[in-house]
């Protein structure tokens, strides 16, 4: 007779298998073609041919250096914004207000924000229209921040999107560090509070934030949809270039794309390793600056603290204005440069897109619901197993989907699916979403499981309730808040996925996000605005309510 624990063990390993299979498949599916082994394309001889081809591609080095620049620039800006905001406002009277505004900004999906960003900051964008009469700048001298050659616009937009994330991730570690006490000690030794922040708190803060920073770096390196809208396209960042090679009708480029994906992964590892080493160097090895006794800020320190409120303004205004722009454009008929407001309005575009939006909404929601609930089931199985056997899910299953470039992983999966030509696109897309939704659902659910007092269950069983019934009647209701939070987070993640839907659905599955990115190539601002708003709306509501629920979870 199969015992409950044996069933659980079976379920646990099945869950791991199903969730990790894409990772394994992705790896194989990319490794093999990279070395020119792809029987389906008549490539039976492993070789380095695709690598040779890759290194002879003229765009390669410029694309890679562009990617590195954007990643480092955006990460540096994010760290700068986050740390200076913490320094200036942590535990000040504005702090609760600031943390309150972080969640909505974080909840704004990146594609919607990117579209709004172009409306604001292109040379004919709204901000230029506001400034142009005041400062009398001609359009030819306007700044270029959208698709600019060095990717500065994209770096800024990425930083704005990532700063709230980092700030939110900082809250718990900072509480643990007992900032007030550190500040008191530091100032009692004569150090200006800012200096205490730099010398004492920053090294500790960085050590707590290694995983979130790694996630940010992984994202900047590999994001495709955001890049298609904001990054330069000549050459394009490396992930976009890989995506273009994947889509090329010349199938001989597929092994090259595979090799490039591996190269991107290596690049990610190098950058992560390099940054970790830099952190080590600055914080540990060459740390004389930490105890050199300098108690006052220098010129740069003073400058930075003066403009910190400006950082906050930028961080909150740009997303807000982006949404405002989306709304305005969606209803406008004629809105020519340099008018500040549309000349004429219309509902025509909303009406023409309504039907399409309905079916996209239905597809997006059904994928989100399915992938989230299956991920939830797997997460519950894994957490129950962990509770019973004290063996948590190996961290690698959680970290890889968060940090490894999506484009390479999915490419591998797609190659393998070529061997299974009769797979239903919808199911394949749901499976792909599960891969990326599962880590988030698991991480959201884990605290609730940890907080659960097992004695409730013990009491129930001692009263005669069979274990399974007790689980459903006692444990599940008590974990309700955690479950709802996890569902909301999971759905939010699924709704904003782009590459998994596109690659695994073979283009036949259209969600609001894929449509929003496709529409952007059409450059009709009214339609772009409508899809941007629609893409923003649902995850926004979901993620906002997730924070509400998470507070309820943590209040217990």
């Amino acid at each position, binding site marked *: 007779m199969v015992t409950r624990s044996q069933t659980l063990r079976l379920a646990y390993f099945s869950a791991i298998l199903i969730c990790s299979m894409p990772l394994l498949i992705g790896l194989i599916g990319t490794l093999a073609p990279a070395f020119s082994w792809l029987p389906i394309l008549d490539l039976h001889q492993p070789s380095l041919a695709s690598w040779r081809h890759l290194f002879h591609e003229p765009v390669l080095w410029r694309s890679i250096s562009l990617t590195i620049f954007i990643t480092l620039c955006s990460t540096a800006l994010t760290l700068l914004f986050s740390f200076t905001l913490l320094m200036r406002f942590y535990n000040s009277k504005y702090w609760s207000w600031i943390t309150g505004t972080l969640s909505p900004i974080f909840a704004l999906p990146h594609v919607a924000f990117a579209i709004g960003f172009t409306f604001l900051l292109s040379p004919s964008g709204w901000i230029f229209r506001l400034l142009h009469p005041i400062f009398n700048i001609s359009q030819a001298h306007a700044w270029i921040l959208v698709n600019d050659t060095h990717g500065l616009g994209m770096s800024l937009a990425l930083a704005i999107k990532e700063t709230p994330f980092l700030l939110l991730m900082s809250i718990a570690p900072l509480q643990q560090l007992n900032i007030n006490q550190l500040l008191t000690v530091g100032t*009692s030794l004569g150090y200006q509070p800012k200096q205490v922040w730099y010398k004492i708190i920053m090294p500790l803060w960085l050590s707590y934030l290694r995983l979130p920073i790694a996630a940010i770096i992984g994202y900047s390196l590999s994001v495709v949809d955001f890049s298609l809208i904001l990054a330069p396209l000549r050459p394009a960042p490396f992930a976009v270039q890989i995506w273009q090679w994947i889509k090329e009708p010349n199938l001989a480029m597929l092994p090259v794309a595979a090799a490039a994906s591996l190269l991107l992964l290596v690049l990610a590892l190098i950058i992560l390793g390099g940054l970790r080493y830099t952190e080590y160097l600055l914080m540990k090895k060459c740390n004389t600056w930490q105890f050199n*006794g300098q108690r006052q800020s220098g010129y740069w320190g003073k400058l930075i603290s003066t403009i910190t409120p400006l950082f906050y303004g930028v961080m909150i205004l740009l997303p807000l204005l982006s949404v405002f722009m989306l709304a305005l454009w969606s209803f406008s008929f004629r809105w020519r440069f340099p008018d500040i407001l549309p000349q004429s309005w219309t509902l025509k575009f909303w009406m023409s897109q309504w039907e399409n939006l309905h079916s996209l909404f239905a597809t997006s929601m059904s994928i989100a619901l399915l992938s989230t609930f299956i991920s939830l089931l797997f997460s519950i199985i894994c957490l129950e197993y962990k509770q019973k056997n004290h063996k948590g899910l190996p961290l690698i299953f959680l970290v890889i989907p968060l940090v490894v470039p999506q484009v390479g992983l999915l490419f591998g999966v797609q190659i393998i699916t070529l061997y299974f030509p009769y797979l239903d696109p919808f199911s394949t897309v749901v499976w792909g979403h599960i891969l990326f939704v599962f880590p988030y659902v698991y991480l959201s659910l884990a605290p609730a499981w940890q907080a659960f007092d097992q004695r409730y269950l013990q009491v129930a069983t001692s009263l005669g309730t069979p274990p399974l019934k007790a689980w459903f009647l006692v444990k599940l209701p008590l974990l309700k808040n955690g479950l709802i939070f996890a569902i909301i987070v999971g759905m939010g993640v699924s709704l904003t996925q782009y590459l998994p839907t596109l690659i695994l659905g073979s283009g036949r599955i259209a969600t609001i996000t894929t449509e929003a990115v496709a529409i952007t190539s059409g450059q009709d601002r009214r339609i772009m605005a409508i899809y941007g708003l629609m893409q923003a709306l649902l995850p926004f509501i979901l993620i906002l309510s997730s924070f509400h629920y998470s507070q309820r979870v943590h209040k217990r």
Partner: protein
Amino acid sequence: MPLILNNIILYSPTQALCDPINITIHSGEIVALMGKSGCGKSTLLSAIAGHLSPDFHLQGQVTLNSQSLLNCPAHTRQVGMLFQDDLLFPQLNIWQNIAFGLDAKVKGKQRKQKAMAVLEELDLLEHSEKRPDQLSGGQRARISLMRTLLANPKALLLDEPFSKLDPELRKTFRHFVFQHIHEAQIPTLMVTHDPLDIPDASIQLDWPNATSPSMEASHA
């Protein structure tokens, strides 16, 4: 270089927490503030150091060397503080923690030399490269005091600094602290709830009725 508290009243959002305090602490003198836990003593110390929580309000004047403290930012007040916890920075090793307290004018290799000299005095030289969590509570407490003193404070605030140590250690550390305060000739205000903490020949104040110094404990 006296530390003078003039008509100090600490207010919580709802009420005054004490009667007006008037006291002058001379160089090398230790004044002990006695009272039950949780009635505001530590808050008073925070106020003097410059970290009063916005919920509280301090009325009155505090002067150090004829300079009003309450108008200055916390880091310029030159008021050292010692807590129950040693609060050595975990990411720095022992000698680096000590060096942190040194003035910026001491540069480069000299900083390490001075820090090592301090450690030698404490007979802790062999632990110089270790992290704080590798040392015992007593050792850490002593290093913490030395760090505070190295910053050349003009006044010292002690917030129940001995309460986390076990009785044996307490005695030796107490003696250590008072000896150094006497050598450095710094006015000190100490908050404690243990009468044994109060050194001989010192003034004891009772909270909240702290208008006039009680001379009882001083003539032990």
